[in-house]
């Protein structure tokens, strides 16, 4: 069976080293799969089969069990996938890369690395003059004249009629060419060697041939040369009115044949209107369609005004009221509420423990319902109207007083003193955010109540990651934890906990 289905190399190895016939039914079922994988690897990549048969003969040995057969098939499949994704990886020149990738993802990444390296090494050097608007990048601005000529050529090849704008553009180009063939003083600066009598005659024939279904080869070549090269492009664009009315007496049609470079619709009669109106999405739009901006425009253009919010004034910290005296837990929280809080925490712990066992679906069903209590229900009369903070030192509850810089700054890593001094010294106009940094970011105005959310399914699916993130917050001192009851009461918590 192996000899029939597997490649010759694989079957030889298997038959020679197999001490006894393959009798196990499960093995017989698994073996053809392994053989097929090896055969596919062999057929797909000679290098891979060479590696499998010589460098790792163990892989092609007879599977002694179902697991061995599956392992053979798996290794062969990885080699197969690696060879199809990245043939260079399996070349004999890089023996360290000849190992079968440990996973399909690795093989895919290896393939990407090879492809990207190949593409990076084959980049055509760019003409610096075409990168004016995109320094630092590899974006190539297209030659609008060349594109126009190509478009016209393609349409003519396919027998598609030119639009009126395109016909006018061609006529204008013909007129410009004829103008350039006149005395040099009348020609705009972009005339080039391609502006020859041959071009003019060919273009004239092209214009006269508008509507016909095909072009001669001579016409095609001439039209293709219409916009080749920057100088020719300049000639075309100037002839079509890119830089304003440089019309000559010989080209009276130019004003209606303006080509608006940089516009989404460069062939519209009124390019300004095209820019002012809503732009149409270009099918297959690419950055390579962008045109370099004129230097004269850039020199007179200011940098954008950004990251400047409106000026605001300093916001004072919340008013500090006369605080009530500290309370004990029994004086602050109803006994029934204490029991509910203990139960809630235990159920959350059970839920998270189940999630850590890998049974996140079960943990999801174990989640307790959110705990909710209105302000008057969660706090005894002595503590109503305030939020309270538990102090472990004397195990009493103190009213939660607002933070206020400089006397009672919030917990943060900011050097608030330096920030405030710098902002005041040099006149930072947005003082409100500085005051927020100093006093602490305020939240919305909410009525006091207690809502305790439950763990999100995402945390149940990734319990190890959750524990790691929670530990990180704790280790950095960004959270307060380790309380049998909520350390601030009443309190809100979303379907969640600390974040980063």
């Amino acid at each position, binding site marked *: 069976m192996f000899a029939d289905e597997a490649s010759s190399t694989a079957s030889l190895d298997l038959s020679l080293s197999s001490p006894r016939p393959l009798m196990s039914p499960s093995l017989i079922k698994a073996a053809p799969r392994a053989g097929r994988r090896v055969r596919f690897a062999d057929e797909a990549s000679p290098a891979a089969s060479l590696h499998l048969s010589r460098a790792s003969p163990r892989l092609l040995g007879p599977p002694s069990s179902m697991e061995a057969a599956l392992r053979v098939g798996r290794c062969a499949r990885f080699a197969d996938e690696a060879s199809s994704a990245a043939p260079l990886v399996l070349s004999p020149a890089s023996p360290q890369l000849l190992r079968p990738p440990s996973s399909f993802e690795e093989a895919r990444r290896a393939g990407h690395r090879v492809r990207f390296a190949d593409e990076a090494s084959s980049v055509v050097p760019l003409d610096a003059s075409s990168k004016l608007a995109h320094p630092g990048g590899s974006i190539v601005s297209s030659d609008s004249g060349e594109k126009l000529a190509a478009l016209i050529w393609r349409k003519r090849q396919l027998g598609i009629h030119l639009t009126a704008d395109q016909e006018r553009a061609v006529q204008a180009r013909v007129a410009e060419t004829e103008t350039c063939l006149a005395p040099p003083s009348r020609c705009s600066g972009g005339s080039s060697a391609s502006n020859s009598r041959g071009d003019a005659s060919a273009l004239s024939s092209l214009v006269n041939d508008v509507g016909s279904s095909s072009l001669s080869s001579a016409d095609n070549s001439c039209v293709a040369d219409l916009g080749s090269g920057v100088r020719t492009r300049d000639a075309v664009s100037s002839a079509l009115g890119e830089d304003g009315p440089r019309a000559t007496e010989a080209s009276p049609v130019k004003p209606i044949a303006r080509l608006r470079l940089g516009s989404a619709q460069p062939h519209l009669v009124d390019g300004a209107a095209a820019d002012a109106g809503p732009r149409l999405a270009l099918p297959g739009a690419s950055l390579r369609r962008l045109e370099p901006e004129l230097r004269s425009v850039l020199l007179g253009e200011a940098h954008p005004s950004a990251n400047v*919010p409106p000026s605001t004034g300093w916001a004072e910290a919340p008013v500090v009221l006369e605080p009530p005296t500290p309370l004990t837990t029994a004086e602050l929280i109803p006994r029934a509420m204490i029991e509910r809080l203990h139960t809630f925490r235990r159920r959350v712990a059970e839920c998270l423990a189940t999630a850590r066992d890998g049974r996140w679906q079960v943990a999801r069903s174990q989640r307790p319902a959110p705990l909710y209590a209105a302000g008057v229900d969660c706090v005894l009369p002595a503590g109503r109207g305030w939020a309270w903070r538990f102090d472990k030192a004397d195990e009493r509850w103190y009213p939660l007083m607002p933070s206020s810089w400089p006397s009672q700054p919030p917990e943060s890593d900011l050097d608030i003193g330096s920030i405030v001094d710098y902002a005041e010294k040099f006149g930072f106009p947005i003082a409100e955010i500085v005051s927020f940094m100093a006093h602490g970011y305020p939240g919305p105005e909410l009525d006091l109540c207690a809502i305790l959310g439950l763990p999100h399914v995402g945390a149940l699916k990734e319990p190890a990651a959750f524990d790691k993130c929670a530990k990180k917050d704790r280790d950095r001192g960004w959270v307060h934890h380790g309380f049998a009851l909520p350390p601030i009461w009443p309190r809100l918590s*979303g379907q969640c906990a600390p974040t980063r």
Partner: protein
Amino acid sequence: MNIVMRNGKARMTIDKTMQLVDGVASYNDSVDLEAIPEIEYVKVSELARAIAVLNTSGAPIKIWGFDLDSYFRRTGKQRAHCWMSGFVHSDSYGYDPRIQLGQREAPVLCGRQSCFIVWAVRRELARLDTAYPSLEEPVLAWLKQRREAAVAAGADAGDAYRWAVLC
């Protein structure tokens, strides 16, 4: 609590938008973003044009930036509002006095905080321009041209960085 995987890295997030109890608005639903001044961020296209403008000077152009680790978490919350940021873990209760990823107002406020950083950076760049002016003739000519363009455009002193910055 929620865990979101980003680029193979786990991030703990908090859902402060979910309404857990009928009739009680969530934290984020209570945030009035309209009352917070907007920030006009720079667009990629504007950045590209700014680079193109600088490129007309003929000087080498380099784009740079920096990232602040755990930016939200460095900033503190108003203590009087910390009761809105509680949590429960498997071993205990706790609360979070720092800005949390999930607060609706946090991106805007931290963005304004970033504006302060941008403002400070611009000040320092202007100071460096003054302390160590360019000696290259083409650059000096470019700066002169830009200042003239600024005057022609009616720019005031506050817009100086938009016209004649070099760094």
